[in-house]
């Protein structure tokens, strides 16, 4: 008998007999009915409360905001994708810019050290956000791989105001996650942090020290 068979056997032949399953009422994690304004306000309140920086801009000129953020933060090397419209537009806008663009759509084995040691910021798109917790949600892709939002000290995430939803439960059920889970699905709420040293908050322990959300609206 394998460990698997032994364990499953014990669970199936439970001494106490079969167990019944109680009903679950998910009402408490959905049905917020916030207005668009409330939703955006909550999103910004919560992500700001954990050190995320939200910068508002119009959808049309968002790359100007990006350029300003890069200049303000002194970013010289920015890693980004290529195919996603966010990456495309950023590449176009930054073409004649002094910021060096680093291709993120490469097998990590070829540029691990470059990513870890030589890139100051990573730019990613987002799939949406959650108002209740101030969370971005990302499904990393070959174009924008998993480490892009994690390894550089600054993560710049581009979010469209219309893609903010009320709760995590709403996103999971409304967007049909269960039938389409990607390799990695992520919620990101602020920059990396720890309070393992005597409950004192410190940012940037292993992941980004800063998270800037460029919130595009209309």
């Amino acid at each position, binding site marked *: 008998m394998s460990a698997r068979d032994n364990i499953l056997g014990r669970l199936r032949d439970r001494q106490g007999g079969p167990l019944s399953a109680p009903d679950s009422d998910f009402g408490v994690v959905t049905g917020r009915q916030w207005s668009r304004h409330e939703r955006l306000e909550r999103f910004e309140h919560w992500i700001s409360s954990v050190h995320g920086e939200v910068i508002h801009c119009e959808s049309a000129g968002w790359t100007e905001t990006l350029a300003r953020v890069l200049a303000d933060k002194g970013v010289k090397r920015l890693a980004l994708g290529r195919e996603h419209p966010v990456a495309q537009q950023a590449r176009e806008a930054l073409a004649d810019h002094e910021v060096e663009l680093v291709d993120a759509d490469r097998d990590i084995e070829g540029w691990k050290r470059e990513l870890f040691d030589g890139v100051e910021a990573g730019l990613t798109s987002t799939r949406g956000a959650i108002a209740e917790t101030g969370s971005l949600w990302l499904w990393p892709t070959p174009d924008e791989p998993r480490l892009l939002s994690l390894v550089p000290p600054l993560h710049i995430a581009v979010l469209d105001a219309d893609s903010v939803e009320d709760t995590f439960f709403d996103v999971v059920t409304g967007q049909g996650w*269960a039938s389409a889970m990607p390799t990695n699905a992520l919620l990101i709420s602020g920059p990396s942090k720890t309070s393992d040293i005597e409950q004192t908050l410190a940012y940037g322990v292993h992941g980004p020290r800063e998270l800037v959300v460029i919130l595009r609206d209309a």
Partner: protein
Amino acid sequence: MSQPVQTYTPQAFHRQAHEALENPQIRANFRKAMDGLMGKRRKAFDDWDLETLRELGANIRLRALSKLPDLLEQLEANCEANGIRVHWAENGEQACELITEICQRHGASSVIKGKSMVSEEMHLNAHLEKAGIDALESDLGEYLVQLNEQTPSHIIMPAIHLNTGEISDIMHERTGTERTTDVDAMTAAARAQLRERFMTADVGVSGVNFAVAETGTLCLVENEGNGRLTTTAPPVHIAVTGIEKVVEHLADVPPLYALLTRSATGQHVTTYFNMISSPRKADEHDGPEEVHLVLVDSGRSRVYQDDELLDTLRCIRCGACMNHCPVYTRVGGHTYGTTYPGPIGAILMPHLMGLEATKDLPSASSLCGACGEVCPVKIPIPDLLVRLRREAVGDGVGNVPGAGVKRSRKEVAAWKSWQWLATHPGAWRGATLVAGSFRALAPSHLGPWTQYRSAPKPAKTSLHTLIKRHRKEKGE
């Protein structure tokens, strides 16, 4: 100075409690930390219908447990279909061997670890070390504890027993970091020390917070990003978890996550919620080529047999029970001498280690009920403590290893005498010196009382007599 290396065991609970109580630094560190955590938790649920949310959390966990074997098979099938290899281990030893084998197959010499209490439970690091594989903890608290050659004193905040000065000393002595009280500087130093290891580690080992049967997804909750790095940067990721961590649906996850972060640290959300459903796909550029899931039993399937003890398996490992435990707050986590300290440890460890080793843990509670009150999945912890006390004295069903180990002829005789007296009202009334009799029945039991308190004086007249007099005065 950092603390000297010390091994803690549950058998030595009383001595360790004595030492902790005599240590003002430990007392102050825990008091401050627990006060902070209790306050944060309270605030975090301010805008919530907490009872309804707890009810939902409990129901989700109960539903998962009610279908546990089916869900484990479904989890396995979906993980395998996604490319995650699933392994089963009857106990920690088997799990360690499985993990070591995977490491060896890849010629691994260096493992980076995300936080995993199950790996602590099975002493994985020591096992890997014996096989010549260096395992480094990457959660900052775990890293500090590992530097100090200790074990975690809390399941969420491993280094909570240490204050800033002590941590500065440890980092200085073990890594040459310059002494400082600047937490940002210490954090930056640790970041630098671990960065190289994330980049070069051959294998990443992590725990799992929720394993979703429906999709074959492993969910990891964290703030630091070390969990994401551990599960993304090395070419191999091994996740290890107890068999009870499975939930049925992906939609079951949001309520449990909402309860977990608020109960644990009073956070409305953690920085990262990392959901892994497969290894790197052909067109993807990063992430591990191989992902393994090791499902560990270690006594859990025995707990599962019993209708009452089963509730122990609902636990989502938030640590709120210890944060609110007045005993844990006084003696700290190491005193328990077990991987899981505090109330959850007292109801879980007897199943993992047997009552012979852990017999003092279920009694190390005043049954104040604070743990049960805050448990996000409504585990009736006080009732389970009483149940284990029954098992320890041989009055239970006997579903726990070592049941009856605490039964002593002397104590049984004392309770039998008490029973006789309390079921013979005439004798009870007649014994005007009932207190005296009680004292005689358990002579060793009043000594400890008067060490800290004045002895209560038995009343000259019992309530029985007073009421008779009262009736007479009233002319009844």
